[in-house]
């Protein structure tokens, strides 16, 4: 406790200090009495003004609640919803994504022609068209369709009131990790944006459990990372199943990645509450509001305007200048190599150890401002060293990756690294604002970074030892 109260100067604090023995001897009684008294007043008023029709008083647990909390169906239903949402997202966004990127790249050709006709210098065309325009086009065509499907679906569940039920169902796991079930709600927010997830940890009462939620929020992939997860999973599951099952397989693979992230959340929460964040016992007081039928129009409108376009705008705002910078870096030569290649060569030995390559690791580092731009940066740096390709489908993206030596092990490591690595700068800033401490912010960066490197290292070394790759 602070010592200012000991100063006799302030009369209010003086009276407070005088009352100390009273508060001490009466223990809970005084505070409890107050709460009880207020409720007694509230009860008196409510009983006068409320009339309950005895025939319409629902005394039973609602059918939907019986199902979602059922011993038999509770957990399978959650998993089914997770896979189902991703299946709808992936199979629904495939076609529009291709159409969008075809449109954008056709327009890029037209733009280039205009630049040529206008006699613009090559570097201007490079920065504006090959840098800014192409990166933004990629971000939009890859991110917009999945988000326009994922967010409304997620918002429907949210408006229905399903999220507190997830927290209710999973709390026993959080309890084992000595954390709070409400952490689930912050994780759900994290699916949209980790910065929002970090801020939403305010709903957790205990500072200890709140810190755990802040430090682990990063293990749920935010929507800036979804496009990476979706694209890479789709490419590497493409050849392995019949067409009809492909999307389902991709969805299941992504669900698996997310479950892995959740597993890491539990493991790290468990570890933290046994080391750095020992102390207070954990608890849960969670309200389960009644299920409410969502208003579909409002859900669609809000999820598109508030979430999809908001997130997309943020992505483009970061991606556009990043595109220009990367283009410039890839066209400034020091000796034989451009700056990107120098950076990649520098990172190569470290990246090799964890099953990536220098370009990938550099893309993750340069993607610190926003995870959305990791794949565009990677593509641009790959392309800057070789032939100019236009990517208007996932298959072509796959071709580029394979051409740069990607194997299934590279893909797995990119998925793992993307899932586990450091939070973006916005999320770190939120962590700093929420904790007000440099130490915790540093940990919010260091813990995921350490885990991402070690997990990828072990996976790579194990696969090589076993002769799988």
């Amino acid at each position, binding site marked *: 406790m602070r010592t200012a109260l000991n100063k006799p100067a302030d009369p209010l604090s003086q009276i407070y200090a005088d009352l100390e023995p009273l508060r001490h001897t009466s223990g*809970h009684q005084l*505070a*409890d009495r107050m*709460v*009880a008294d207020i*409720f007694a007043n509230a009860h008196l008023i409510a009983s006068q003004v409320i009339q309950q029709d005895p025939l319409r008083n629902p005394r039973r*647990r609602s059918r939907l*609640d*019986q199902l979602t*909390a*059922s*011993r*038999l169906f*509770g*957990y399978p239903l959650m998993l089914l919803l997770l896979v189902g949402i991703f299946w709808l997202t992936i199979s629904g966004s495939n076609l529009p994504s291709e159409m969008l990127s075809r449109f954008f790249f056709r327009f890029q050709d037209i733009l280039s022609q205009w630049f040529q006709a206008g006699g613009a210098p090559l570097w201007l065309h490079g920065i504006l068209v090959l840098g800014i325009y192409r990166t933004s086009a990629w971000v939009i065509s890859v991110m917009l369709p999945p988000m326009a499907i994922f967010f409304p679906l997620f918002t429907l569940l949210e408006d229905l009131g399903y999220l507190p039920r997830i927290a*209710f*169902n999973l*709390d*026993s796991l959080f*309890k084992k990790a000595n954390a709070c*079930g409400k952490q689930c709600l912050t994780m759900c927010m994290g699916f949209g944006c980790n910065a929002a997830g970090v801020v939403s940890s305010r709903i957790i*009462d*205990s500072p200890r459990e709140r810190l755990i939620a802040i430090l682990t929020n990063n293990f749920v992939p935010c929507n800036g990372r979804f496009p990476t997860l979706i694209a890479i999973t789709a490419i590497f599951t493409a050849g392995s199943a019949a067409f009809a099952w492909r999307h389902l397989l991709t969805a299941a693979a992504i669900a698996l990645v997310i479950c892995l992230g959740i597993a890491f959340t539990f493991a790290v929460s468990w570890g933290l509450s046994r080391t750095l964040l020992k102390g*207070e016992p954990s*608890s*849960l*007081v*969670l*309200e*389960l*509001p*009644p299920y409410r039928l969502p208003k579909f129009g409002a859900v669609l409108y809000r999820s598109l305007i508030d979430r999809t376009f908001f997130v997309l705008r943020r992505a483009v705002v970061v991606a556009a200048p990043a595109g220009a910078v990367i283009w410039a870096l890839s066209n400034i030569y020091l000796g034989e190599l451009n700056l990107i290649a120098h950076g990649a060569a520098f990172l190569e030995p470290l990246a090799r150890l964890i099953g990536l390559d220098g370009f990938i690791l550099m893309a993750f580092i340069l993607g610190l401002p926003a995870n959305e731009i990791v794949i565009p940066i990677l593509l641009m740096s790959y392309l800057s060293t070789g032939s100019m390709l236009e990517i208007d489908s996932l298959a072509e993206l796959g071709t580029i990756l394979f051409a740069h030596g990607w194997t299934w092990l590279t893909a797995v490591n990119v998925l793992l690294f993307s899932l586990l690595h450091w939070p973006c700068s916005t999320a770190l800033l939120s962590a700093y604002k929420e904790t007000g401490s440099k130490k915790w912010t540093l940990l919010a960066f260091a813990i995921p970074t350490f885990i991402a490197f070690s997990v990828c290292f072990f996976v790579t070394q194990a696969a090589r030892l076993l002769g799988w790759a």
Partner: protein
Amino acid sequence: MATLSSLKAGTQATVASLSIEGLLRRRILDLGIIPGANIRCIGPAPSGDPIAYEIRGSVIALRLEDAGKITVQLI
């Protein structure tokens, strides 16, 4: 005297006392779980913990061990 955690789904009781400390005590009191209040067990989560209770018109989930620290009088 029974504890809240021992209530079967669908049964009602009156809160008798709370032996919980700190912020959690405050939290639980603030939701209206105070001695004399009517409370009804709705049912557990799939794993058996936490358990949902209806109190003053809303549904609140508490962990087994916390509910075990609240004594109730069966109605």
